[in-house]
Each structure stands twice: as C-alpha cells, then as structure tokens.
C-alpha cells in the first residue's frame, strides 16, 4: 500500500508508472514528460531513471519487448532501453490513483494525481480532494488547540509566549493556506465536471436564436 512507501519518492514512482502506462518510453524522455506534465520544479533531472530502478525491483515495470528497431530511442548516439508497465504495475497505479491522499496531504501527490487522471472519473478525484480538505481542517483544529494551550502556558516568560505564538500562528496559516488551495482545486474540478456534463445543452444554448 501507498502508506509503506516514502512520500516524494513514492510520487515520482507513481508518476513514472502512470506515464509508462500511457506510453512506453525511455528514462530520458520520461524526465522530459514529467517536466511537461508537472512542471520542472517538482523533480530533479534523473528522477525518472531512479524511479524506474525502484519500479524494476518491484516488478511494476519491465524493459519493453520492442520489435521495431525504429522504436529504440537513440540519445547522443546511444541506444536507450524502452520501459513499459507490467500488468501488476497497471493494477498498482489504478489503486494509487483511487486511494485517498495521505494525511497530512502531500501537495505533490495530489498534484500528480490531478495531472495523470483521465477526465472520466472526476467525481472520485473530487472526493479525494474533499477528503484532503477535511483532513486539513482537523490539522488546523489541532494547531488551534495547541496555540490556546501555549497561550495558557503558566510558567513561560512573555518572550517565550511570543515566540510560541509566532510559531503556532505560522503553522495555522500554513494549514489555512492549504485548505484554501484545496478549495480552489475542488471548485475547479467541480466546474470542469459540470462543464463535461452539460456539453450538449450548452451547445444548444449558444446556438443563434434569431
């Protein structure tokens, strides 16, 4: 299960797996595609080959049995191996995609799910975002409670209390910002879902009436 795997390492693995399910590819091109789909800030260069190594160990991907020589990618005059997902790799990816995100929700993980999700199952994705939103409200509630206890803090000096207040306020602000980001994401996905569902009527409305 996802929870046994390291956070960001895991996301890189799932992303590479998702991209290989879409289309078998070399590590070199995978790096490029990660950049295109998720923005280059997310992962360093070479992240794809490290992810592929781990996926190979877990037998979630394998070198593709490419018959056509033209499909063997050549980079800098050298032939590169093309990888593809194994059936258990496809299963694993599907499970990951539909699973709730971790608590606290990792932005990169949710980001990856959104980037790799087909538009067919938006309701499940919206549900995942909703769960993450609720998880964040719980975290904020906790940090609120801590802040109150700290402000009570009997023996602490004024300086200590001020420092505690600043730190706790920072944490609360962080959760607050995350909640609002998730709200935006959910609203966007809901709008997208509504748009998909109303494509036909929308056309009718836009048809010139006179």
């Amino acid at each position, binding site marked *: 299960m996802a929870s046994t795997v390291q956070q960001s390492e895991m996301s890189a693995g799932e992303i590479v797996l998702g991209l290989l399910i879409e289309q078998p590819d070399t590590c070199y091109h995978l790096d490029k595609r990660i950049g295109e789909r998720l923005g280059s800030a997310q992962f360093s260069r070479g992240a794809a080959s490290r992810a592929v190594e781990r996926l190979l160990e877990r037998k979630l991907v394998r070198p593709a049995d490419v018959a056509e020589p033209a499909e063997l990618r050549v980079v800098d005059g050298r032939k590169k191996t093309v990888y593809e997902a194994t059936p258990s790799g496809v299963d694993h990816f599907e499970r990951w995609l539909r699973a709730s995100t971790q608590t606290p929700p990792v932005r990169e993980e949710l980001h990856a799910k959104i980037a790799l999700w087909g538009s067919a199952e938006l309701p499940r994705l919206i549900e995942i975002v909703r769960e993450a939103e609720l998880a964040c*409200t719980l975290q904020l509630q906790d940090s609120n409670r801590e802040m109150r206890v700290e402000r009570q803090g009997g023996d602490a000096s004024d300086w200590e209390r001020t420092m505690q207040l600043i730190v706790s306020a920072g944490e609360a602000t962080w959760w*607050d910002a995350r909640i609002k980001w998730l709200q*935006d994401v959910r609203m966007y996905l809901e709008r997208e879902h509504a748009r998909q569902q109303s494509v036909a009527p929308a056309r009718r409305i836009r048809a010139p009436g006179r």
Partner: protein
Amino acid sequence: MDPVLSLRGVSLSFPRGRRHVVRVLADVSLDLHAGESVAVLARRSQGKTSLLRVAAGIERPDRGSVTFAGEDVWRLSDRRRSRLLGSEIGLVERAAPHLDVPVLTGVALPLLDRHGRRGAYARAKSALAHVGASECARQRWGELADSERALVALAHGIAREPRLLLVDDLAATLGIEEHADIAELLGALAAERGIAMLVCAGDSGPTPNCDRVASFAGGELLVAPAAPTDGTNVLDFPGEHRRRALS
C-alpha cells in the same frame, strides 16, 4: 442538550440571469452548542454572508431546516423571527455604523427601547469594557484603528447578550497579536457566557482560533469532527488579562 443552532440539509441558490443558478449553500448541516465556536474558512464570494444570513433567520433557504434553540425558525411568526435577531441572535459585521455618533452611544442605541436610557448606557459600557474597548467610548468610528473597530463591532454584538453570535470576517485586517487577542476574546465569550459562535473568515488575515474548523467552498460546508475530549477543557484559557488591565 439541544444545540443552540442546528442546520439540516440547508440549500440555497440564487438565479443569475435567466439560465444560470448559483448554488450558494448545498445540503449544509451543522450543529452548534452553547459555548462552542466554529470557524468557517472560505474564499471571497463563496457565500459566507449568505450562510450567516440563513443562520440568523434573515434569509429563507430553498430546502432544509434552521432550528434555533429547538424551534424551527421558519415556523415562527414573522414578528417572533425578526425579534430573534438582535435579541437572542447577534450578527457582528465590521461595516461602519449608519449614524456618526460616539461609540458608546452607538452601542447603546439599539438597547434603548428595551432597557431605557440609563440601562442601555450601562449595558453598552459593560459590553465595551468586556471586550476591552472602554477607551474608545467617546471616539467616533472614523477615529478608530482597525483593531478597535473589530472590538467595537464585537461589543455591539454582545451588548444584547445573545445566545448565538454570528461573526463576519472580524479579524480580516489584523496582525498576529491583535488577532490572537480577538481569538482569545471570542473563545472567552463562548466559554464564559455560553454563547454559541459561528465565525466566518475570508481570504485575508489569520484563521480564527475556534474549537472546530470548517471549510466552505462551492456551497459545501466540510466540518471537521469535534476534538476528542481528553479531560482538558480547551476553552478554559484566560481571557481575563485584557479586562483586568482596564478595570
């Protein structure tokens, strides 16, 4: 014990143009008990004010029920319902008052018909003292700093000793410390006076420090479940220092 405010499956939409309907509240449910505070986090234009107006019995929802102290608000007579607001339900907004009078007079005005001149002024004074804004009594709204305005608005809200206080974006423009003071004050009001509080917060400013937190977007209210009770009363923190300093 019955919740002070109970929303059940409340939905509200507004038509926009002829073909579109804006969903402001979608199947919102919430129980708010005496002495409990809930912070609602939402972006601008997400229907925070509509939520408060529905909770206050000003706006009638399309569907669902609004129950105040065990009574369905929309089964009450218009007269009784409109009396709830301003007596048992307080709505705190930071809008400038309509009359440019000294703060104390402004807070006392709505109390005049029920408590008489002397009583109204006494209550207004006590409300201002309670929130730590006694020094603002003679000033006018235009002379007040943001943090003082927030306190005066709160004094307006509690002067009539409501059971339910609805607070709209009070701490929006405050800094960490002023905000912490307001948060502490709200918590103390909830705990000491047993007021149920629904506090909405917008884009700007820090999160209100309430017992429970709810995320509000697209008409949906996602309320985190109540914190586990581990023996410590989270509301039991000193809200005294401000008042002590002024008395």
